């Protein structure tokens, strides 16, 4: 489903698309229908099916039985689930600010017009985005090797003994590093684009006031791209909560540091594929979906209120 990069939870409110109620409604539905039909097939039907599944229990011995909301009660008391949620929350609180911070600084640097070779920077920092997550993780996995990888090389060259990036204490940071690498350029480009369209009149006003560079940034640039910042944050929440590819590929290298319930998404995957607990997996996924939506919505409300 590749393409389903989630649009921001209530994004439409952020930037209400101007709508002109022009035409007969059937034509509108007609244009929208192809999207809606495919969407129903690949999203709504599986979700509806999962809802149905979540009311049952299927066992190796004894087959399928209706259990009502038992799976939901179990999920809410499931330590593994909450632990995985805690882990991605920690990830969210550390990795996202770091990544967005770097992206913002680079975007401001590009926008300042004070860089040599601006377009080279812009495109090069953006490039990692084109690398598939699976390939990116494989690459970093090789580099994290303390014996033959880059870390090992650094140790050899400087006579150091760096800690193993794949040890249980560091592996979350190592995953964060991969994600940061993949998306810092992308976020940078978004912020940069937002900076580029700040109306000229604002700068002129600042000039009359004799504002310095820093003042221009804090008083004009940042407020002007608040919308972009808020949306980037919301999507990072959804992205962090759905973290899966990086831990699952790295698990092969760090089997003891990355457990099968490392992130909520990984947990539902393990439940479903290794444990044959499709019903419970569906339940956990639905609970997780609700939590994600609620948090994204709250952040959006707060962010926009302050912004307004």
């Amino acid at each position, binding site marked *: 489903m*590749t393409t389903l990069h989630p649009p921001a939870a209530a994004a439409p409110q952020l930037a209400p698309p101007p709508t002109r109620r022009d035409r007969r409604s059937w034509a509108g539905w007609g244009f929208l229908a192809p999207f809606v039909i495919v969407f129903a097939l690949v999203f709504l039907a599986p979700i509806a099916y999962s809802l149905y599944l979540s009311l049952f229990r299927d066992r190796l011995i004894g087959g399928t039985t209706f259990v009502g909301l038992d799976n939901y009660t179990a999920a809410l008391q499931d330590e593994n689930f909450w632990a995985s949620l805690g882990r991605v929350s920690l990830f969210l609180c550390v990795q996202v600010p770091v990544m967005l911070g770097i992206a913002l600084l680079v975007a401001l640097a590009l926008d300042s017009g004070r860089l040599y070779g601006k377009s080279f920077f812009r495109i090069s920092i953006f490039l990692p985005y084109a690398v598939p997550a699976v390939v990116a993780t494989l690459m970093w996995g090789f*580099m994290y090797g303390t014996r033959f990888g880059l870390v090992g090389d650094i140790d050899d060259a400087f006579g150091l003994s760096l800690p193993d990036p794949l040890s249980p204490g560091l592996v979350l940071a190592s995953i964060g590093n991969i994600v940061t690498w993949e998306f810092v350029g992308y976020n940078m480009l978004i912020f940069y684009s937002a900076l580029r369209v700040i109306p*000229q009149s604002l700068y002129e006003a600042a000039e009359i006031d004799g504002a310095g560079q820093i003042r221009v940034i804090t008083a004009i640039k940042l407020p002007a791209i608040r919308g972009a910042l808020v949306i980037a944050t919301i999507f990072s929440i959804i992205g962090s909560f759905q973290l899966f590819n990086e831990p699952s590929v790295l698990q092969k290298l760090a089997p003891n540091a990355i457990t099968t319930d490392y992130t909520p998404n990984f947990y539902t995957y393990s439940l479903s594929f290794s444990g044959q607990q499709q019903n419970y997996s569906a339940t956990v996924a639905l609970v997780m979906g609700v939590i994600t939506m609620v948090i994204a919505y709250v952040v959006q409300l707060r962010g926009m209120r302050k912004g307004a």
Partner: protein
Amino acid sequence: MTVTTTGASSGTATRRTRPVKAVPRLRSARRRPAAGRPRRSVLLTVLTSLVLLYSLVPLLWLVISATKTQEGLSRSSGLWFDGDFALWGNITETFTYHDGVFTRWLLNTVLYVVVGAGGATFLAVLGGYALAKFAFPGRRAVFAVVIGAVAVPGTALAVPTFLMFSNLGLTNTPWAVIIPSLISPFGLYLMWVFAGEAIPAELLEAARMDGASEIRVFFQVALPLLAPGIVTVSLFTMVATWNNYFLPLIMIKDPDWYPLTLGLNSWNAQAATAGGQPVFNLVITGSLITIVPLIAAFLLLQKYWQSGLAAGSVKE
């Protein structure tokens, strides 16, 4: 099946951001001449170079590693070349290994991208146009539903989707990869915003007055105006489809229908089978070959998507 997205954590985020900035488009923003040409700063350039290094070193590792043989990989350090330069040999071997199946995977991927990403863009354009230019009941609900669905972790939906597709006889066919690729919620949103801004209602009205059908109005009046947005959306759907991994993993069992990501993974897994042959050199070279077309597309289309991004700044 959001899995592919999952990794995309922040990527998803960013993607969506863009429409936001599309909003100020109507305001004027010619590059501020008043500030004059700011003086270039060596210090700032050096600092930014750190981020540049961070971005490029892993890619450098990939390029260097692609020049090594399987034995060379074992004996040399990661960030420097091994004695023998085997890049061409690796490329040839990648394309000929297992009767040249890599070429097949490459073509499959192209097929999935052309039909999947192309279709996704088309559906998004149609849908975005409808949302922006027509008033109809349920319009606002559409988006809320789309977003809610996307928040559910995709891995858990994989089995239900598989069972459904299997019942429809779609598994193990290209359709199992293509159909789910057709949905790009981000694309829909972007086109919604973009169509709202880029198509003046009067133009549509005028065409309708002339008696043009809705279909005709869309293709002849609206579509040309949407071009910059379309290029941007297709680039993103293309990256997403090109890098698609989890869904084909579930849906496709016949290696003849593998996309590149899955094929490379199977080569990687081969090292872990009794009697299997480790071909890490081919996995690395294959990975490099996999990302080259995407990077090339970004570089070649740079003018278009950057103009798409900055569309707002030109419009007065």
